[in-house]
């Protein structure tokens, strides 16, 4: 599966957070790196949408969608500016 970047989940995250998120800064809970969401390493097409840290590849975000519901796991982020 080819890695994309956080631009690819701009629509999904806008749906989840109700606002544009690709320029928002998130902090990796593993290595502390702070980057804009657009820079996250993103994998689509699995059972869930996965975002990883560009610096240490730790899991930052998992979004699984079922019907009209999104389940969002942000435990890999110590901070996300909304």
């Amino acid at each position, binding site marked *: 599966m*080819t*890695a*994309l*970047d*956080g*631009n*690819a989940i*701009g*629509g999904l995250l*806008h*749906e989840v957070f*109700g*606002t*544009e998120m*690709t*320029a928002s800064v998130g902090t990796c809970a593993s290595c502390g790196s702070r980057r*804009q*969401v*657009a*820079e996250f390493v993103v994998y689509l097409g699995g059972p869930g949408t996965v975002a990883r840290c560009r610096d240490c590849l730790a899991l930052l975000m998992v979004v699984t969608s079922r019907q009209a519901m999104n389940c969002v796991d942000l435990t890999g982020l110590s901070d996300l500016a909304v």
Partner: protein
Amino acid sequence: MAGTAVRGRLTWQVGTVSEVIVETPTVRTIYVDVPDWAGHRAGQHLDVRLTAEDGYSAERSYSIASAPGEPVAITVQRLDDGEVSPYLTDELRPGDELELRGPIGGYFVWDGEPEPMLLLAGGSGVVPLRAMLRHRARTGSATRARLLYSARALPDVIYRAELDEYGRDGAEVSYTLTKQQPPGWSGHAGRVDQVLIEQVAFPVEQHPAAYVCGPTSFVEAVAQWLVMLGYPPSRVKTERFGGK
């Protein structure tokens, strides 16, 4: 469910295809009338959703090809094993409906900033960069702009006539053809490499903004070379299409 769009919320809308332009044998630009379109910025994208009769649906993101203030257009490259693009490039006709949501993104955008803009495109990664150049031309911007566009061969170059016109009109446009060059070709040949990036990059002291868009491997290589040249990572905006 119809209704008024709630401010800030991104909702699926149904647009109507107004025009389909053949750009290359495998690339189409599709103009869509979207009744409640909020307007877009150069570099943004939108999501398209196709739904089959049995309810199965597939979504893809496409960069917006038109400039701010123009009708919505996307440029789509046909992928032979694609689930969505063959329908968009081969089946869609003016008058057909298309479900989409957008505009999306606030990172890979150009709003007319005065610092020199360095645009680096791999294949169909040229689409959002074309929107930026188009915006620059339409607003009479004095921002220096330089585009390096990597394509396999000349017939694969999207928007060539328009880009060449920008090249005669203040922007600097160059191509590198990776697989095949026509006889007498005076442009670059071969893949983009570090030497070529050094040639086209504005000096760091001019505080340029770089926008890199294309296949993931292209984007990562180019972004790395720019940072090695001294570009601050925050001045190198990237958008990856995946692919090869």
